[in-house]
């Protein structure tokens, strides 16, 4: 079994025809992870015993022919709580944390009979774009192990791109699914805010966070989003809108689709090779019968400052719960209760997390609230209006996912501003609660380039339809990386 030669449909067929048992698939997956992870270092915890037991049980009961996800291994970002399985959010603060409940998405994956093989690395509390702020491991890009895998869902993206698993879940607050998907040459989807329950997702910025799938193909991605979407009474921001079958419109026919390309997404910060790849993609869409026009999103350049105020403010509030009392890290040899709070937080959080907590605390302080938090929340309204104006006349927005391809490990970690600017093309989508997809659209010096598709709220179907048509017309998704000298 080779994940590079399979997708969900072909694996499902092998399972149904008993050419492969779920137990064999699970065993091979773990053997493969142990081998490849020597280079990639994507996994923080393996769920071997439970996964094998679950696979055996599935084999005994028989694989459901109608369920393409049955018996398929999946990797889970480590900020999604998994009952009894160590969940750290890649922070020393939660180094020994074993959740007593499952996130809603975990219940849904279990109902879909997917097999959780383990937890994957990320930036600490999902704050970062390179997975370098993890307290535990340095995950490598699947295409070049001297490059970052992107972030914060870097472990999820690298695990899929290196053929360790076919599917992973990530979370996206400002680009954390789409940017690592772009850097690793795979498909990553951030669903509409409210499409997927956030219950059991360790909160970073609650008005922006969404869970979504990372896969090698568009159709595989649609299958997984089908399984994890839907209303949940435990997340009051989850939507009760009906969930369509996202695989349904995947027929390659996008004649007459109206696509908008924001001119701001081709500003000077975007690499020439990235621009060229996206311009080629535009030609492909036109050849498929779509119309493509240039539009303007005039406030998109303010996305980064708006995001860093809003996300950091929400984070400073959400992360107050880590006080060393009920769970998580508690500092030793403390003198009094105040000391427990201060020393546990000081020793438990890494620098990027501290920076954002402080920026958020500052933005919400009495003297700065109007000039910072309120101002950012107003400009957020203007960013939402920009998108609404474009979607009056267009079905989809297209542009690059990130300004560059993956950069070198260690290159940007100490320079927050440069690092934050990498998110300039993905952040506005979170601020407006829209669905966004990154998919492979080319290469530059052997590193993948990602294209981003953005749809109106709850129109993931349009995004999948267009993504599928592009994928079928190109062969970027068929390229596979060479890891440790082997495919």
């Amino acid at each position, binding site marked *: 079994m080779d994940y590079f030669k399979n997708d969900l449909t072909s694996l499902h067929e092998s399972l149904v025809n008993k050419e492969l048992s779920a137990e064999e698939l699970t065993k091979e997956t773990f053997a493969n992870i142990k081998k490849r992870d020597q280079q990639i270092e994507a996994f923080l915890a393996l769920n071997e015993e439970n996964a094998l037991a679950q696979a055996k049980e599935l084999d005994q009961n028989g694989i459901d022919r109608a369920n393409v996800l049955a018996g398929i291994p999946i990797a889970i970002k480590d900020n999604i709580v998994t009952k009894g399985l160590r969940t750290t959010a890649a922070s020393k603060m939660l180094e*020994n*944390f074993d959740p*007593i*409940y499952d996130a809603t998405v975990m219940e849904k994956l279990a109902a879909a009979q997917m097999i959780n093989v383990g937890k994957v690395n990320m930036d600490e509390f999902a704050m970062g774009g390179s997975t370098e702020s993890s307290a535990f491991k340095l995950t490598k890009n699947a295409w070049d192990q001297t490059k970052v895998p992107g972030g914060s869902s870097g472990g999820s993206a690298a695990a899929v791109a290196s053929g360790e698993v076919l599917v992973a879940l990530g979370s996206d607050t400002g680009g954390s699914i789409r940017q690592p998907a772009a850097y690793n040459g795979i498909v990553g989807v951030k669903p509409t*805010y*409210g499409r997927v329950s956030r219950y059991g997702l360790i909160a970073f910025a609650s*008005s922006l966070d969404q869970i979504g799938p990372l896969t090698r193909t568009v159709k595989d991605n649609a299958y997984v989003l089908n399984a994890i979407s839907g209303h949940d*009474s435990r997340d*009051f*921001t989850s*939507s009760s809108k009906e969930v369509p079958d996202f695989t349904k419109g995947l027929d390659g026919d996008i004649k007459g689709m109206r696509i908008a390309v924001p001119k701001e997404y081709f500003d000077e910060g975007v690499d020439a090779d990235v621009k060229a790849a996206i311009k080629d993609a535009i030609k492909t869409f036109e050849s498929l019968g779509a119309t493509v026009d240039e539009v303007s999103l005039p*406030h998109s350049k*303010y996305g*980064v*400052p*708006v995001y*860093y105020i809003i996300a950091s403010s929400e984070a*400073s509030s959400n992360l107050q719960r880590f*006080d060393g*009392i*009920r*769970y*998580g*890290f508690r500092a030793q040899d403390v*003198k*009094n*209760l105040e*000391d*427990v*709070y*201060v*020393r546990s*937080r*000081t020793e438990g*959080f890494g620098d990027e997390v*501290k*920076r954002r*907590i*402080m*920026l958020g*605390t*500052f933005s919400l*302080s009495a003297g700065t609230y109007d000039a910072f938090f*309120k*101002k*950012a*929340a*107003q*400009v*957020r*309204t*203007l960013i*939402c209006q920009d998108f609404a104006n474009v979607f009056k006349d267009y079905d989809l927005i297209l542009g690059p996912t990130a300004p560059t391809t993956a950069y070198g490990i260690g290159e940007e970690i100490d320079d*927050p*501003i440069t690092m*934050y600017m990498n998110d300039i093309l993905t952040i506005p989508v979170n*601020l*407006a*609660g829209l669905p966004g997809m990154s998919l492979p659209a080319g290469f530059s010096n052997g590193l993948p380039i990602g294209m981003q598709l953005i749809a109106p*709220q709850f129109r993931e179907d349009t995004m999948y339809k267009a993504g599928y048509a592009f994928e079928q017309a190109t062969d970027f998704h068929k390229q596979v990386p060479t890891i440790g000298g082997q495919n």
Partner: protein
Amino acid sequence: MAISANEVKHVASLAKLDVSDAELEKFTGQMDQIINMVQQLNEVDTTDVPVTTTVTDAFDVMREDIAVKGTDRELLMENVPERKDGFIKVPAIIDESEEG
């Protein structure tokens, strides 16, 4: 400077974080850069623009008030760093050396 070392120290204390002198210099420089970047928002006219704090249209979501069994107490205590006699154990609120 958009923010001084003293202000950073104050913000850190509000957030229950302790910052060493060496870290203070680094954080102040970085926070200063970030706040400078953020100040470009001042060029946007936001007169009469409402704030956006959520992008969901959900409003006052209600549910039936039905009693359900709570989480088992032992289970809730499982991740508590220190416990004694079924309670969470913490140090005294005042300095232990000051205890009478």
